[in-house]
C-alpha cells in the first residue's frame, strides 16, 4: 500500500530508521498546499535528516536543496529520514505548533512512533502494519539483502547492486558510506536511510 512500509530488519536495526513525511489530500486540502509542504521540508531540514526528497522531484543525493524546494507542488509528497526518536519527537512538536494542515505520517517502530506523538501532544490517528511476505518467497534474496533493498518501497534498489557493492567494499574499493550513497540514489523519493544502509553493509562485509 505504501512506499515506506514493509522495511525489514531486527528491532535493533529498525531503531535507527524513521521517516516523517507530509502530503495533502487530492481534491480536499490540495489546492495551495505547496507552500505548506515547503515549510514542512524547511522544518525537517533543520534537523539534518540522513536523506530527504520529494516524489515529484527526486532525492537529496541527485537534487540540490534549492531544486527540491522549488520543485515542491501541491501534489508533492515530501519526506525526511531520521535515525533517532528524539529528533522525530522534536520535529513533530514543531509541526504540531506550526499547524500546517497537511497530513503527516511517521514510518518506523510503531511503539516508538506513538511515544514521539505523546511527546508532541499528538495522538496516533490511523496506523498501518505489514503482515509480511506471502507466496513464492524462495524467489527473494536473503534477508540481509532485503533489509537494505526494502528501504526503497518502490523497489528501485536492486539486490544485485547490493551484492556488487558488498564485493567492492570487501576489495577496499568503496567504504560502506560511499556504497550506501550509491544505493540511495535510485530511491527517487529520498526515503532510503543511508546511515542504516551503511551499518547493514558493514555487517554483511564482516559476516
Amino acid at each position, binding site marked *: 500500500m505504501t512506499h515506506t512500509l514493509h522495511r525489514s530488519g531486527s528491532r535493533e536495526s529498525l531503531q535507527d530508521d524513521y521517516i516523517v513525511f507530509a502530503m495533502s489530500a487530492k481534491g480536499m486540502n490540495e489546492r495551495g498546499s505547496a507552500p505548506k509542504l515547503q515549510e514542512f521540508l524547511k522544518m525537517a531540514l533543520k534537523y539534518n535528516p540522513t536523506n530527504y526528497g520529494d*516524489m515529484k522531484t527526486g532525492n537529496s543525493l541527485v537534487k540540490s536543496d534549492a531544486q527540491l524546494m522549488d520543485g515542491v507542488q501541491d501534489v508533492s509528497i515530501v519526506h525526511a529520514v531520521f535515525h533517532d526518536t528524539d529528533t522525530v519527537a522534536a520535529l513533530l512538536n514543531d509541526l504540531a505548533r506550526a499547524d500546517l494542515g497537511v*497530513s503527516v*505520517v511517521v514510518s518506523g517502530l510503531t511503539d516508538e512512533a506513538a511515544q514521539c506523538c505523546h511527546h508532541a501532544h499528538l495522538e496516533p*490517528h490511523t496506523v498501518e502494519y505489514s503482515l509480511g511476505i506471502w507466496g513464492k518467497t524462495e524467489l527473494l534474496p536473503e534477508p540481509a539483502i532485503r533489509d537494505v*533493498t526494502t528501504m526503497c518501497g*518502490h523497489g528501485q534498489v536492486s539486490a544485485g*547492486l547490493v551484492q556488487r557493492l558488498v564485493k567492492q567494499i570487501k576489495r577496499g574499493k568503496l567504504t560502506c558510506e560511499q556504497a550506501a550513497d550509491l544505493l540511495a540514489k535510485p530511491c527517487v523519493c529520498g526515503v532510503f536511510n543511508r546511515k542504516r544502509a551503511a551499518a547493514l553493509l558493514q555487517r554483511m562485509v564482516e559476516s
Partner: protein
Amino acid sequence: MIIDESLCTRCTECVAYCPVQAIHIHKAEKRVQVSLDECVECGVCLRAQVCPTGALQQQPLSWPRTIRSALSDPLVVHPETRIPGRGTEEMKTNDVTGRYRVGRVGLALEMGRPGAGAGFRDIQRVAQKMATLGVTFEPLNPVTKMMSDPTAGTFPREILGERVLSAIIEFDLPVAQLPQAIQAAREVAQEIDTVFSLDICALVHGNEKLPLPDLIRQQGLEPSLNGKTNVGLGRPIFDFALAAEGQVS
C-alpha cells in the same frame, strides 16, 4: 528499455542496477541484452546514468506496455490518481479523507513486492480471489481502474501478458470479515508464481476496544514491529463521529 548493440561496449555496468534481473550477458554471443518480457520499464538502469556510450535507451512505449512504466516507475504520475507511482493516498491522508472508518480495516496486497515483480495473470488471480469476498476495490487505485470488471477482479485480456515491478490490490472491509480475507490470502498465496506483501490499516480513535495488533494476532499473524502512523495533523479533519452517526457521507 533496450540496448543499442551498435553502441554497447559490453562494460556490463548497467546489469546490477536492474531490480528484476532483466539485463542479460550473453558471453558466447558477446552481447548484453534487455529481455523485453522481463523488463518492467522502471527506468532505474537509465536513471543510474552508468552507460558510458548512451547504448541504454528508452524505446517509445505504447499500450498496453505503458502499464509497465505506470506501475513500476515512481516518477510516472497516474493520470487519474495523480499520485506518482503505483499507490494511493490510503491511510496517509485518512485524517482528512475519512477513507478508513470505525469498525473497518484496510487491506492491501502488494503484488511482486519486494523486488520479485508480478505478471497480470497472477495479479488477476489474487484480485479474483478477493472479489469472491464481495469487497469493493479502492476506486482511486490505478489497479482498480485497470480492471474490466471490478466486481469480479478481472482485467482486459490484452494486459494479462504485462509484467510490473509491483501492483497494489486495495480494499477495505468490516472487521468481522477479516478472517475470511486472511484465509483467502493464505489460499491464493499458494497459487501464484510470485510474492505479495500484505498490509493492514485501521483508524485508532474509536477502534480502541480491539487495537489493531490484537486483531492481527487473532488471525494467527504477528504485526510488524514497524509501521506507519498518521499523526492526525491534516485539516480540515474528517468528522468520524458524525460519520458514525450517518451525518457525513
